[in-house]
């Protein structure tokens, strides 16, 4: 049976992880490669690296870093943040990334999804959608700083039609609150789309993960701080999910 995926997300700036990470026995907590290896040992199913710098120099650093990660770990990983051209994607995939995630650039130029999907295959194109609830769920861009008038449900359908392989859905209402994932919009996407949906934003305890799989039908769940700060060790989370009837890889 296909299992539900648990995905830690690492924010990268100038080749280093940002946000403190407290694996006590880790020599360099800022080294993404060391952290990635640790997560693999703990049983993470995939990793996401989000580059929060977008200068040309940082981009080169990122490609080098992706190469190092690819040689060090033996599970799939996605790289996102500031990707806007076919050349960006080509460089990252060639360096060894399994998937790339695009966000603002896809909203600005939706045709990019078609082009990337056609050139590299849908399986490696993740479209990240940052969303916030007003009268209905709407799409935000530029790391959640800028509103658009686009309805999330429309956009999610459109990115699927254009050839996205997966959707990474982040609720800005929930992100950072540790009050649980946005179950309604996650469930809508997970049941209305043919492609897998990765839920993101709001994880605070193990029950939240159980809910996003059981009640919202997410295919995968992504989180950052609860993993980085050891609040929810991945092995504990997976055993808890398994005890509660969720199929996970242990």
């Amino acid at each position: 049976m296909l299992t539900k995926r648990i995905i830690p997300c690492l924010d990268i700036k100038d080749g280093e992880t940002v946000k403190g990470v407290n694996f006590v026995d880790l020599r360099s907590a800022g080294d993404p490669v060391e952290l990635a290896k640790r997560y693999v040992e703990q049983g993470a199913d995939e990793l996401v690296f989000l580059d929060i710098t977008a200068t040309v120099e940082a981009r080169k650093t990122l490609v080098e870093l992706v190469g190092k990660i690819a040689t060090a770990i033996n599970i799939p990983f996605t790289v996102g943040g500031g990707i806007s051209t076919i050349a960006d994607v080509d460089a990252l995939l060639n360096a060894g990334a399994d998937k790339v995630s695009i966000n603002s650039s896809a909203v600005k130029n939706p045709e990019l999804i078609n082009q990337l999907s056609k050139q590299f295959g849908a399986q490696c194109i993740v479209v990240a959608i940052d969303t916030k609830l007003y009268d209905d769920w709407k799409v935000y861009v530029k790391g959640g700083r800028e509103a658009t008038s686009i309805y999330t449900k429309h956009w999610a359908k459109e990115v699927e039609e254009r050839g996205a392989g997966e959707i990474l859905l982040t609720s800005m209402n929930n992100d950072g609150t540790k009050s649980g994932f946005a179950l309604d919009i996650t469930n809508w996407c997970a049941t209305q789309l043919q492609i897998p949906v990765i839920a993101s934003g709001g994880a605070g305890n193990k029950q939240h993960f159980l809910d996003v799989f059981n009640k919202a039908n997410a295919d995968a769940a992504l989180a950052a701080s609860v993993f980085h700060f050891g609040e929810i060790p991945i092995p504990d989370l997976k055993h808890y999910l398994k005890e509660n009837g969720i199929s996970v890889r242990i």
Partner: protein
Amino acid sequence: MKVVIIKYNAGNTKSVENALLRLGVQPIITDDKEIIQQADKVIFPGVGHAAPTMQYLKERNLDSVIKNLKQPVLGICLGQQLMCAHSEEGNVEGLGIFPVQVKKFKSNNQFEKIPQIGWNSIRNLKSTIFQNIIEESFVYFVHSYYCELSDYTIATTDYILPFSSALHKANFYAVQFHPEKSATIGQEIMHNFLNLC
């Protein structure tokens, strides 16, 4: 030991190369006929579309090179599918090593997503490449097409229906999943393949 990864337009050779390097093997990535024929082990990887890939292989005469190889050959993902008789993807004839049809998954409800992306288990393991691998071990899949069950099936996986997650005939082995991305289980399977005589 000389290990060749067949270079072609379907990409993903980097991940396989990295996995071999982690096992202490420096592979040669090439589409040169003679180097492929002289290798001790040949890996035929693949991510991409069946029809243009078959065309690419035919244009370079690599189709007949691959099917006439005598050393152990491991097809991965699209590599497995192309080693079969026919694929629904682009309605294309494959290399015909395995008399097996490659079909597209058909979803019955909103919970059966296509492609299958993620970790699924392998069962009914029947080959030395699965030595020390326990039943129901998890490996990583990304695919919309699958190889039907056949007499050559050496591992079965259930997604929508049971399909051949691995095939074996003579010196030819093929897996639908990505051993290079399947953590220690995948590493062990690649190690077993490299140890074949």
